[in-house]
């Protein structure tokens, strides 16, 4: 088994209303040095590795987990002990 950690972020240029709301909140807490805030998604997927795990992860991201119109993704694969 491998643990795949997938990070999904909005593409640059795509408005992130959640991030904007959090940015305003941080400013109101007087973190005046805070610039842009972007909110993404983090997923952990346990996968049995049959040797093609990277292709599998990329395919599932393209098919379902991320929407390529608005989102980018990256991932890391970890050994489970």
């Amino acid at each position: 088994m491998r643990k795949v950690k997938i990070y999904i972020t909005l593409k640059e240029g795509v408005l992130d209303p959640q991030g904007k709301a959090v940015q305003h909140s941080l400013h109101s807490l007087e973190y005046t040095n805070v610039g842009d805030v972007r909110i993404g998604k983090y997923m952990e997927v346990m996968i049995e590795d049959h040797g093609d795990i990277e292709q599998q992860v990329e395919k599932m991201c393209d098919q379902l987990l991320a929407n390529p119109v608005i989102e980018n993704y990256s991932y890391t694969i970890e050994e489970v002990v």
Partner: protein
Amino acid sequence: MKFAVVVFPGSNCDRDMAFAITEALGEEADLVWYQEADLSSYDGILLPGGFSYGDYLRSGAIASTSGVIEQIRQAAEKGKPILGVCNGFQVLLEMGLLPGAMLPNQNLKFMCHHETLRVENNQTLFTDFYKEKEEIQIPIAHGDGNYYCDESTYQTLKANKQIAFTYQTNPNGSIADIAGIINEQGNVLGMMPHPERAVDALLGSKDGLRLFQSILTHWRNNHAINA
């Protein structure tokens, strides 16, 4: 004319849609559970609003991977009219039958009220009962109705006259005030506002009814030619 209203777990405007067809339009409509659906005998397919699969992951994303989707794709290729409203629009985007994607409303609020739409293209099978640039009253009810596409997609939509409806007062931040778009072939319409909730004066507007009358008239004309 016989319509299928495809019901996903979490659909909640399915009965409104069926009511619009059977009571207001006077045609046939079946509520079809997505797993058992056989869409081959229907003349038109309606994807209703709601929160399919609880909007988990992204609105419409999980429904867009279900078994019935292949049938919807085939029906689209055959030229059958397909209307996706609200969550149905989100499903059409997620399955790639229409270009673009939905983001949360710019103000992060769920909004539910009447909006004034402008008919941008009245030369489609869904809109030719409207006048060009006519203003109509149709209710919205959504949290993720902020339509997004990149600049080149927008230019293509504009050049092909694929923008069917725009908002007069943009409620959600959609690019170029877009409220509804059609595919290039012209037989698939996705829109965030709910025409099925505007089919009787009692509902505050009956401007939505003409959308269904347009579909029906087109179908009858084609049917008469083929018969």
